[in-house]
């Protein structure tokens, strides 16, 4: 099997894997970065969202062989000390219930706010609609994104 060199959270890591292996499983099973969650495997729930070259990307659909040229950031690499404004807002609003989808929500929100640091409510709601939360903590996710935006912009 081929060996792939990846850049994850600023570190160079290599893995021997099937070329079509989704990056999700490389992160979780090979690199022990289990903050990126498996939810659906078909890009519908957003639990596995990471940043690939700064863009919110579903890691369940990103093949390892395609990811080698990319700068990959996972929830573990978003900040060193929970200092990212989105993580801060998530804490201040106390967003999670079960918490399983929240890493993906945070990664979607942080990439979105980088592109659009001053969004209106509808833009937030649209941007976050690709991420499912069965506990339905949506009101708080919305508030937390608004709060993070107010600190970023």
């Amino acid at each position, binding site marked *: *099997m081929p060996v792939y060199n990846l850049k994850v959270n600023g570190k160079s890591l290599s893995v021997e*894997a*099937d070329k079509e*292996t*989704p990056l999700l*499983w490389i992160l*979780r*099973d*090979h690199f*022990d*970065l*289990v*903050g*990126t*969650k*498996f*939810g*659906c*495997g*078909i890009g*519908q*729930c957003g*639990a596995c969202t990471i940043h690939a070259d700064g863009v919110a990307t579903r890691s369940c659909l990103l093949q390892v062989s395609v990811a080698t040229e990319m700068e990959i950031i*996972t*929830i*573990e690499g*978003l900040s060193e000390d*929970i200092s990212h404004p989105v*993580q801060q807002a*998530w*804490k201040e609003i*106390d967003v*999670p*219930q*079960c*918490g*399983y*989808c*929240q*890493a993906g929500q*945070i990664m979607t929100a942080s990439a979105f706010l980088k592109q659009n640091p001053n969004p209106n409510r509808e833009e937030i*709601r*649209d941007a*976050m*609609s*690709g*991420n*499912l*939360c*069965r*506990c*339905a*903590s*949506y*009101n*708080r*996710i*919305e508030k937390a994104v608004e709060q993070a935006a107010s600190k970023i912009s």
Partner: protein
Amino acid sequence: MKRSTTPSFSRRSFIRTSALASGGMLIGFNLFQACKPEAAPPVDIADLNFNDFNAFIKIADNGMVTIFSPNPEIGQGVKTSMPMLIAEELDVAWENVVVAQGALDTKNFTRQVAGGSQSLRHGWEPLRKTGATARQMLVNAAAAKWGVDPATCSTENGVISNSNGDTLGYGEVVKEAASLEIPEDVTLKKPKDFKIIGKDIPNVDIDKIVTGKPLYGMDYKEEGMLYVSVVRPPAFGKKLEDFDATDAKGVKGVFDVFKFGDKIAVLAENTWSAMKAKKMVKAKWQDDSKLENTEDYNKALTALLDGKDFNTMRADGDVKKAFAEADKVLERTYESPFLPHNCMEPMNFFADVTAEKVRLVGPIQTPAGTARRIAELLNRKPEEVTVDMTRMGGGFGRRLYGDFAIEAAEISNIAKKPVKVVYSREDDMSAGIYRPAIKYRISAAIKDGKLTGYHLKEAAVNSNMYGLIPNFFPAGAVENYQVDVAKYDSNITIGAWRAPYTNFLAFAEQSFFDELAEVMEVDNIQLRLDLLQNVKGHNDERIQYSPERLEQVIKTAVEKSEWGKKPEGVFQGFSSYYCHNTHVAEVADVVLENDQPVVKKITCVVDCGIVVNPLGAKNQIEGGVIDGIGHAMYGDFSFKDGVPQDTNFNTYRLIRMNETPIVETHFIESDIAPTGLGEPTLPPAGAAIANAIRAAKGVRMTKQPFVKNMKEKALLG
């Protein structure tokens, strides 16, 4: 009359203390035993050793308090709220409290199920008494040191003071306190003196969640563990005939493929190899029993409602006579589909079966029952089986059933390896234990402008409503009242789903009351209030809801939602309900966008007694309401020849943020003992929006999901 009473905790607390070699004091108690409705020591108190305890408070020399909570946390917040009760009575600052996952050991105690929104209700008194007992021992130790009467001492934020102005920190007297006799009677704080209860306390796991630390069963791994993907029968009613795993075994990383029961296990070094190889297993299936179709059981349920073969759950007065003598009769039938749970964390479990022991780790709401079943299945002694609980990525009832843990144990037993079974989303949705399809038929008899008879019939797949549900509103409010149930047996597996039965019954009844008010030509809210007057002062012990508390949430919802005072174009819908010991009223504000109803806001009024942690409580309330709306609007699940027709979120629709209203929560201020919030705000949500849709579009919803029902009624394009 008897009201929803607080479970009492009158017997001696089975608390034990010990000085720690490392300094500090350890206080042990059995949380699940303590939180049972009728608390009883697990064994003779004199013989207790620390293995009999599953919850501990550790007070260190520096005054830091660690509370080890053994609770399964499924997102309902008990890992935060239950330790708050202890810390309040221990009288320490929350900043000096660390909550840790308790030591897990099923050998020496029986765990209780996490479910039914009961944790806080049952924990309210024993957990506070545990904290108060520890506090009293610390005070007694300080008083002895000072040579004063303990009654002259007081505490605040972990510091003991006497009337001479001397002070000692808890950490300075823990060593002495640990050797003192455990006081029998302790005084609990008055609600007005609470410093932690009633404050907004953030989720104790928040830092780990927002940084992606391993917390969930899905994140658990051990050296040498194999990942397992399981091929299960593709339809209810099929069994395995034969299979060919040649191609699957050729996948790099695959360790073995073998049959167990009617399933095939694919074991691999990593999840992806297991999932990929699973798809390459060529299995042949044969018919074993009926292959169910949605049309078939829908017809069967209607036939049951039309028939005469019912079990009567409650009958007051003479319903037959009331209907025979009625001036007017209203009869409506409400229909709902099967629903999968769709926890965001798919089912998974770790098992390591060796000659010495059976070690299980994972997300489970019923660890004791599951351990027992596995011990029986593998013919092992119960004490050889241990279960470690991880945080759960949702439960909603699905994790009450240990089928996935049993699979892991069976596979590990055959493979002689530590394994973790991982469900794909498709596995999770198609090997479900679903909320059953249910139909309700409700009839009302009206005579001289009064409601004289109420007859509720339930037809459900495999299992009917249970417990106290037949005694919920309007039981007691209508003289002639009857609840009848019937079931249709199917091979589709069914089980509890967040707020079992009431999750749909509340929609049916609260929609019916609105229509009934129309037929009776009375105000819909006044009808509910008038009926509640009939329940006041009665002495029916079966009735758990309080007419006074229900009346208060209704009136408060009218006020807070500006009921009837909204500008033109805002259509409101009302619903109120009691379940899981909590009283709730909800008002939906719906507007028309492109002529289609959109839910903008829900005003939710809740009486759950004392609100222990408002921050966590509101989260549960908002989630319950939106979850209720989502499933009422979109939740649909059908079968064709025994095959589930949706297997992933590309076709199965869960509510998303852009479809979500704002939920505005109001609590009824109360000194009454708290009740749970994991479920009670979900059931009334469906009727609130159905009644608002009626106001907006003039059409009544009778079937869930509403998007389908609206299409049938040509309301949606």
